[in-house]
């Protein structure tokens, strides 16, 4: 390694780096900010040209997102004055609320399927990874390669067979079917990632627990799991991001009961053309769970791996 690579960077260099990072962050976060802002615009503001940077914020998009509306006669509207703030927003457009929209259900589906498959992928992945890491499994290398090989082709390449299989066994448009599918896709990643993490945990910790009178399974969940927290957290985030954002299978395999948010959001079409604020509001809400999940697990990601107690 050359000398300069380990010496402290100069002040000027640091400034240039900071500016580049700031610029890059701005570029990447811009579309996101634009979506969040659009969600709070009125319909007119959202399609104004030139685009508006400052505007009168409105919750119209969110109200449209969560409700279905119909046009009513003036007499009906006069006879039924708005009872609360969101009815008032709808009234001001000359409409009334007919009922809740499907967005709530779809969002709930996304949550059940996303978190359900993440939980299963991580649970099964951790146990498989532990077994591969610690025991003499026959044909271990071949099995590991086989598991990895399931990722070598894009999952969507087998969309048609999966579609037919799901239809044959009655898994089409069910929560169980989608959880199964996403778990199957994520599991190989989960096993490989977690095996790497568990390999790094010295065996002596579990052996100490075995000596201290604990069973192998107790040693696994009392000693190995806390040590693997970093790996489990990052694996869970990867799995959730995939399952949460997955679009192609969701379009193909779900249409009603089990439809997730990604295929639903683009179908939000207002009475008078595309309802951009409602779609942006949907996208904003859709972003939140992964963000919150990541922030909650951040402590584990940043804590790093505490191998301090064993000197290597």
């Amino acid at each position, binding site marked *: 390694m050359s000398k300069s690579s380990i010496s402290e960077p100069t002040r000027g260099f640091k400034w240039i780096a900071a500016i580049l990072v700031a610029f890059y962050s701005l570029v990447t976060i811009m579309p996101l900010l634009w979506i969040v802002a659009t969600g709070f615009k009125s319909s007119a503001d959202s399609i104004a040209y030139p685009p508006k940077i400052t505007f009168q914020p409105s919750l119209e998009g969110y109200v449209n997102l969560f409700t279905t509306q119909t046009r009513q006669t003036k007499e009906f509207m006069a006879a039924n004055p708005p009872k609360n703030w969101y009815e008032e927003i709808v009234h001001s457009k000359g409409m009334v609320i007919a009922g809740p929209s499907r967005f709530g259900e779809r969002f709930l589906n996304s949550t059940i399927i996303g978190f359900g498959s993440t939980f299963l992928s991580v649970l099964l992945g951790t146990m498989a990874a532990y077994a591969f890491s610690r025991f003499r499994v026959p044909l271990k290398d071949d099995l590991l390669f086989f598991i990895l090989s399931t990722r070598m082709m894009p999952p969507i390449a087998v969309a048609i067979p999966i579609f037919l299989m799901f239809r044959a066994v009655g898994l089409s448009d069910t929560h169980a079917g989608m959880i199964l599918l996403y778990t199957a896709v994520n599991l190989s990643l989960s096993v490989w990632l977690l095996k790497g993490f568990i390999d790094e945990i010295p065996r002596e910790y579990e052996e*100490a627990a075995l*000596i*201290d*009178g*604990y069973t192998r399974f107790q040693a696994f969940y009392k000693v190995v799991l806390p040590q693997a927290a970093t790996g489990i957290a990052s694996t869970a985030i990867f799995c959730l991001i995939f399952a949460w954002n997955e679009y192609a299978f969701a379009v193909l395999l779900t249409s009603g009961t089990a439809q997730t948010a990604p295929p639903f959001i683009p179908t939000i079409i207002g009475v008078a053309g595309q309802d951009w604020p409602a779609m942006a509001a949907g996208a904003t809400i859709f972003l939140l769970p992964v963000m919150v999940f990541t922030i909650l697990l951040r402590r584990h990601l940043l804590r790093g791996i*505490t191998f*301090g*107690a064993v000197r290597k």
Partner: protein
Amino acid sequence: MAKIQIKNLRKEFGDFTAVEASSFTIEDGEFFMLLGPSGCGKTTTLRMIAGLELPTSGEVVIDGEDVSQMPASQRDIAFVFQMFALYPHLNVRKNISYPLHSQGMSRVEIERKVADVSATLEIEDLLEKPVSGLSGGDRQRVALGRAIVRNPKCFLMDEPLGALDAEFREHMSDELLRLHNKMKATTVYVTHDQLEAMQMGDKIVVMNHGVIEQFGTPQQIYNTPKTMFVADFIGSPPMNFLNFQAKLKIGTTKIKLGNQTVDVPELYQETSGNTVFGVRPEHVRFTDNTGYRGIVTATEYLGTNQLVTLDTANGEIKARISSSQKATVGETVGLGFESQKITLFDGKSGSALRSALNNDGANNG
């Protein structure tokens, strides 16, 4: 407290044999040393005693009970790992009390035991600290605390001082011995450091390439090595080896070394061909009434002693003599040997020839 018998214990990893059929007995309360160079199978042997590794064949008998196939958690032994293996997510107190929780002991009892142990080891101040910030010595103490807190049948220690700084090692080894003398618990201690083994052990097993070379007290192993490997591994500097050709009969007391006659302990075994004359440096002295000569090639001053390296007709030899004696590089001097301390080895097999010195029968491994 326990007596441990190892009977024909053997371990293979695939087609590699890490431990060849070995047998020895560790008496109750003994401080027992497993000594050998790195990779010779010490850790594997210890892990088989602990139950962390199942033997390919053979038996481990603790207090008369064959535990060879029993899981570690049921053997009631404590293990101090080479790198301590303290639970990194628990603080010192929890680390020490961890083995007690598995026994379902009451809170009050656990509290009391942890207090006792931490007082013995003088680590009361550390109890609430995380283990990651501890110094090597303190980690060592916590690891010991975790081992002694539940009064196991025996302690197994895998190079417990290996991870410590040299200056601290001596201090910790004193502390370990003090603890052992107080608790009188059977201890099996693995080390590759012959000095440590000689200083601390009641008995020593010397291993090489998975084979037990010798088993006995430090004195037996030092004075009457059974193989050239042991003679070379033990002692610093090691035993001198002078090669010569001979045809010796039972009852021989004199041999020919470089045309000079040298006295040796009475031989109980005949031999012929390549033979090795083994003598410890402190049993070599300078003398004028001998024809056996060497040229001084180096001297090393060690305070009251000095170590003199010489060239002889049969190879290089080191002598540990008083510093008051004069030794000049390039000078030729006469060499005498303390005849009753000589061990002869068969040059081919490397084993010691039986003689009046080593035939007391007490050191058969």
